[in-house]
């Protein structure tokens, strides 16, 4: 049911590359929310729904950031991997280049925070972190607006 939401949003909105377009993110997010809501009217408990909404939020963020970003690809991969945990097809995944220098605990912490940060070099890590922070801030502002306007009325 979540996969359906990704495909819908992606096909309908084309490929927006810059994440400066906040209405695009808003659109995707609202569509995803409506889909979440329609799927059994938010299953049993609010916590389950909350998790679904969080996944939808990250998915919209990653989808609107564009496939050119390493963190968005890694994030989408992580989200989609959840249903069906087993190894479907042993594909040659070469992307596990682990950069040496794990002594700096700050760097390690940053790698863990930014999605897909385990394999990049330090410069790329900083670059991706900057983009990730920008996107996250936009997503937080969007969600805050929605919650505010919803609870205001």
């Amino acid at each position, binding site marked *: 049911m979540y996969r359906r939401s990704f495909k819908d949003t992606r096909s309908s909105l084309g490929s927006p590359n810059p994440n400066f377009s906040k209405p695009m993110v808003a659109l995707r997010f609202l569509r995803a929310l*409506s889909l979440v809501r329609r799927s059994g009217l938010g299953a049993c408990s609010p916590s389950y729904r909350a998790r679904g909404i969080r996944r939808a939020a990250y998915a919209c963020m990653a989808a609107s950031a564009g496939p050119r970003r390493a963190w968005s690809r890694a994030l989408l991969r992580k989200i989609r991997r959840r249903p069906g945990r087993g190894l479907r097809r042993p594909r040659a995944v070469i992307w596990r280049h682990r950069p040496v220098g794990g002594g700096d605990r700050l760097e390690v912490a940053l790698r863990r925070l930014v999605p897909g940060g385990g394999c990049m070099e330090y410069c790329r890590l900083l670059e991706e972190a900057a983009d990730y922070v920008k996107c996250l801030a936009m997503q937080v502002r969007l969600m805050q607006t929605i919650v505010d306007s919803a609870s205001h009325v």
Partner: protein
Amino acid sequence: MEPPRSSGVGIDNSGEYSPEIAETLRFEEEIQSLIHPSSFDGSAAPTGGGSFTALLGLPANQAVELLHDSGAREPLASRIRVGGHPVHRPFHLPLDCSSAFPSNATLVDRAARFSVFAAEGSPASSSGRLKAEPQDSDSPPLDPIPTGPAKRKDTGRSKCDVRLSLSFKSQAKATAKKSKNAEENTDGDKLPYVHVRARRGQATDNHSLAERARREKINVRMKLLQELVPGCSKITGTALVLDEIINHVQTLQRQVEFLSMRLAAVNPRIDFSSLDSYLSAECGPVTVRNGPGGVVVDPSLWPTDATAEATRRLLVPQFWHIDLVPPQLQPQQSLTTWERDGAAHSQLLPNPTTSLFLYDPANSGNANVPHLTAKLKTAEDRALNL
């Protein structure tokens, strides 16, 4: 026979000076022929197109100074340590210009940062040529700032000789370095062109240049991050800045989780489908505009207004549109949804509006849209009142 070594710059090849000395002497003659007709101007930009001085991008007399130094190293060796003005020069060139010669390290640094090879003014044209000429190298910091007020020691000048001789050797490698920098330009589309310049007293071999380029890249990106994270620009020191960034990312992620919990609590009351159809109608023309040029339509202000107003406008007409719906439908649906949601909404029970919002829009979601678009104008007053 090692005056350059005496100046303290590390060179590992000692046997290659003789061809270079011959070369410099040859150039020296060429430059002498150029110099003598022209006046001894401290700030004269290089005139000849293909001459050595043009290659260096120096005013002619400074180049001569250099060559004179390199040509006559031995007699200078004793004078280097003296530190005073070398008064034994046969050329009697004005020394203040040459004393200003390789600029302050700070100016070079700034030039490197703002991707300008030299200071503004006449040297700019020569530095343009500097870039184009393949024989130029990164190693000599030949920023011609002839009228700069910097004081100069003789050791610095001798170091520049050494770098000059080094430049002959490392030309090929320097071009490789330049091409690498050019590639970096296209790499990060948002990030500025990182120039690597060897400052005074810094090693100029390949590895250190590469390291320096990498360090400059990292510094540029750290600055970007610092600008993004609020409150980070005052902090000095990489570790603290990184700490702050990590804190900020964690805060944002926690906020997303918290807001999603709140949305989950609020969720059943909101009609999202009609809302997003309204937004898509509104944002359709916007996307067309934004497509080609990426012209941002006031990104921070406008969308928040759009979403806020959209939600408000749509929720309110829904309120009194539902009034018209036969009331017997409502209590059943409201009861069922409330049972599912449980105690989360118990505190909202006395509020009359919530019962109306629990009306499931899945049945009439699509039907609402034409009604809502027609009623938006009239509902505006109520939205504002509320």
